[in-house]
């Protein structure tokens, strides 16, 4: 049990280092939030006077010495207060909270779809290694996993949405729609979600395929597989109980890594589809140098990754008795 405590302590220390970095990073970036606050994306039309900017700075505490700012930052962090968005004029946590479900459901669904097909095809490929099926699958999957996700997204958008008009072009749901019932609402959300989910799913599938194929092949060559075959037990048991449990270990790591990246890994795809998740929010926040919001998003991403890694450790331990 003491191992768990030690792990949690480590986690907290990591977390502390990260929030410190989180504090420093935006302040090291060139640019100024009030410069953008006073301009309409790109077109610079100055509407704040220097005096007003000074006043704003004082209001947000950005004129104080850096250590004082840091102290204040830590204090509010302890209270769970992520600050107030300069650009959106709203509580940072409220903004983020509204975006999280979109991103998470996107990643989750795409991982289920991609993982399901990826793992099954990967195992099949490994089982028929160097056969025709394996050769075709392998080269296709390598190709797919090498294409950047936004390119796949744009392809889908061009053909399926723009050209054939099968799917909506952007957004998470129809704007200003009045839904007759909650089923209509869900249907609308699902309809908007299909392309982003499939895009991410294809990428995930390539990853899962390669990982499960290679770990399955590695397991097939292990001595214990020879032992298992010599025992004359059924092929099903050899494959499921002996091979798959061992091959599952790297796949589990991959799943949690993928989940950890749920919030940060979708930036490109969300931007392609203008999908209202955290990725899109992040781009907006960076463009306008909205420090509190950027920090808030980074912190959420970090927390997510840390928690997922922690969970991966716990689940891994359940699977592999060798890990203490």
């Amino acid at each position, binding site marked *: 049990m003491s191992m768990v405590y030690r792990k949690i302590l480590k986690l907290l220390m990591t977390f502390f280092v990260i929030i410190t970095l989180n504090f420093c990073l935006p302040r090291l970036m060139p640019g100024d939030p009030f410069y953008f606050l006073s301009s309409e994306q790109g077109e610079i039309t100055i509407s704040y006077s220097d005096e007003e900017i000074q006043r704003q700075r004082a209001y947000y505490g950005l004129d104080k010495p850096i250590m004082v700012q840091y102290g204040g930052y830590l204090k509010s962090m302890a209270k769970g207060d992520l600050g107030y968005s300069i650009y959106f004029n709203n509580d940072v946590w409220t903004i983020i909270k509204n975006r999280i479900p979109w991103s998470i459901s996107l990643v989750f669904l795409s991982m289920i779809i991609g993982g399901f097909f990826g793992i099954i095809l990967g195992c099949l490929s490994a089982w028929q290694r160097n056969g025709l099926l394996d050769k075709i699958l392998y080269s296709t999957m390598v190709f797919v996993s090498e294409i950047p996700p936004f390119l796949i997204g744009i392809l889908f958008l061009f053909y399926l949405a723009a050209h054939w008009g099968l799917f909506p072009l952007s957004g998470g749901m129809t704007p200003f729609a009045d839904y007759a019932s909650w089923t209509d609402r869900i249907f609308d959300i699902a309809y908007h979600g299909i392309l982003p989910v499939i895009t991410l799913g294809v990428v995930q599938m390539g990853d899962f395929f390669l990982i499960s194929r290679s770990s399955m092949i590695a397991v097939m060559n292990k001595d214990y597989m020879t*032992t298992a075959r*010599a025992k*004359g*037990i059924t092929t099903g048991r050899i494959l499921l109980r002996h091979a798959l449990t061992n091959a599952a270990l790297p796949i589990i790591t991959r799943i949690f890594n993928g989940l950890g990246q749920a919030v940060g890994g979708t930036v490109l795809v969300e931007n392609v589809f203008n999908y209202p998740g955290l990725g899109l929010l992040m781009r907006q926040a960076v463009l306008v140098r909205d420090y509190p919001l950027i920090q808030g998003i980074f912190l959420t991403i970090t927390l997510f990754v840390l928690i997922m890694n922690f969970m991966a450790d716990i689940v891994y331990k359940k699977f592999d008795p*060798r890990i203490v």
Partner: protein
Amino acid sequence: MLTVENLSVTYYQHNLKVHAVKEISFVLEPGQTLGIIGESGSGKTTLGLAIMGILNPNAKVNGKISYNGVNLRELSSKQLNKYRWKHIAMVFQNGLETLNPLLTVKEQIMECVTRHLDLSIKEANKRVIHLLEQVGLEPFVSDYFPHQLSGGMRQKVLIAMALACEPKILIVDEPTSSLDAISKAEIVRLLAKVQREKRFSMIVISHDFSVISSLTSKMCVMYRGSILEEGLTRDILNNPMHTYTRGLINSSPSINPFQDLWGIPAANSKAGDGCPFYPRCSQRLDVCKDKKPKLEYVSLERRVACNQGGIVTLLEASGIYKTFIFKGRSIVACNNCHITVRAGEIVALIGQSGSGKTTLASILSGYLKPDKGIIKFLGQKVSSHELTCRPKGLQMIFQDPFSSINEGFTVLQAVTEPLDILKLYSPQERKEKAKKALFAVELPVDENFLQRRCFTLSGGQRQRVSIARSLILEPRLLIADEISSMLDPSTQANILRLLKGLQNSFGFAMIYITHDLNLARKIADKLYIMHQGEIIEQGPAGEVFKNPSSEYAKQLINSADLL
């Protein structure tokens, strides 16, 4: 019960063909124990896996493996599964990943039990515990994962697992590799015990003679996928008939606790279509390069694959008598002496001074005429010195290097003298040969040294020159008469190592005459002890030293404090 006929296994990897097993045949009777020995890479494990039918798909198998009349090679994988483990089980080589790291010991044994035996869960549980107890493990080990076991425990689990379904044949692959001495002895005892109790047939695959000799009654010696020798384990150990088997025995520290260890020299040429051992054999002939020997009976229970029928008998002397008349008193120096020397072996002839050793050696080399007796060299009867005056015959090195070499000769003259006398080769070739021989005995070969007079050399150098002189005719048998007794201990050690090294690489046989038992134990394969003109004891060196039969030999060995 198990018959293997013309079994061949070829691995195909990246267009590379590797013949791991070549046309092997053997029969395993019920309750019989068969050992398979060979260096690593000789195809032993492949043979085991082939019998189980679990070779990789990239291995091509030919031949027949029948178990109780059923050709296992014709069965489908499903049908084969009925035989696997239930009839033929295997104790795999102990490795970290031989057992599945994610499953408990219990589950891994249990799955064999439930698959092949019709038992309830409760009975199966009981059986797992019983199996563990049978191999000397506590029942709680069943809940352990493989990584929690020590090497010895893992080996026991592997044995328990193999015994799970009471197999009729057990294949045991390297049961003691990577185990310490105590666990090793324990595992060997355990295997012997269960085999005795359950009476199953057992094939033990190992490179360790001590394992094979304590577990098996019959054995095959494998080299590069072929069986080179087959016979009763005890017979083979006492009297190997193939040069490879002898080489293996000579390199085994468990059989030769006292002798210097000399491995078989590595091959310096490639084996062609002929004998697989050709490049490393010490008695190879040109025929062996192209003619592949068949495994044939040389005696009732022994089969050897050798074009010359196994290790050749070089010298056979029988019924040698010699009496000297000295001032009217007759002294019997040799009384009905027999001696046999096989190619490539070192025979030590031991005895006190005056026991007749030197007389016998002189008779063998043709310097002295026996009163009675026959000497045969490679089956041909020989008389007087016809053996010493020809290449590939017999040469002698004498005790005293100061008097055996003409002091006035240059080194070159001394070494080429035999060739000069026999008028063999041109002077230039003689010089080349002399240089080669001097190089072999680790002497300088520059002109300066070649022209030095022998009286300027030290005793050790002179003895080396006389060894070089005897090597120049490439003898098949060398008689060394107390060659080191006049040298200081360090020079003696150097000369002996040199001689043994030369013997190991050139493969000649040697009769080493000495009164020094310690020395004899260090170098000899075979021992003859002489006393008052009679050979009173003979046999494999290890045996004689351990267990001398005659009173005199016991006395001799006792006085040397060797027992």
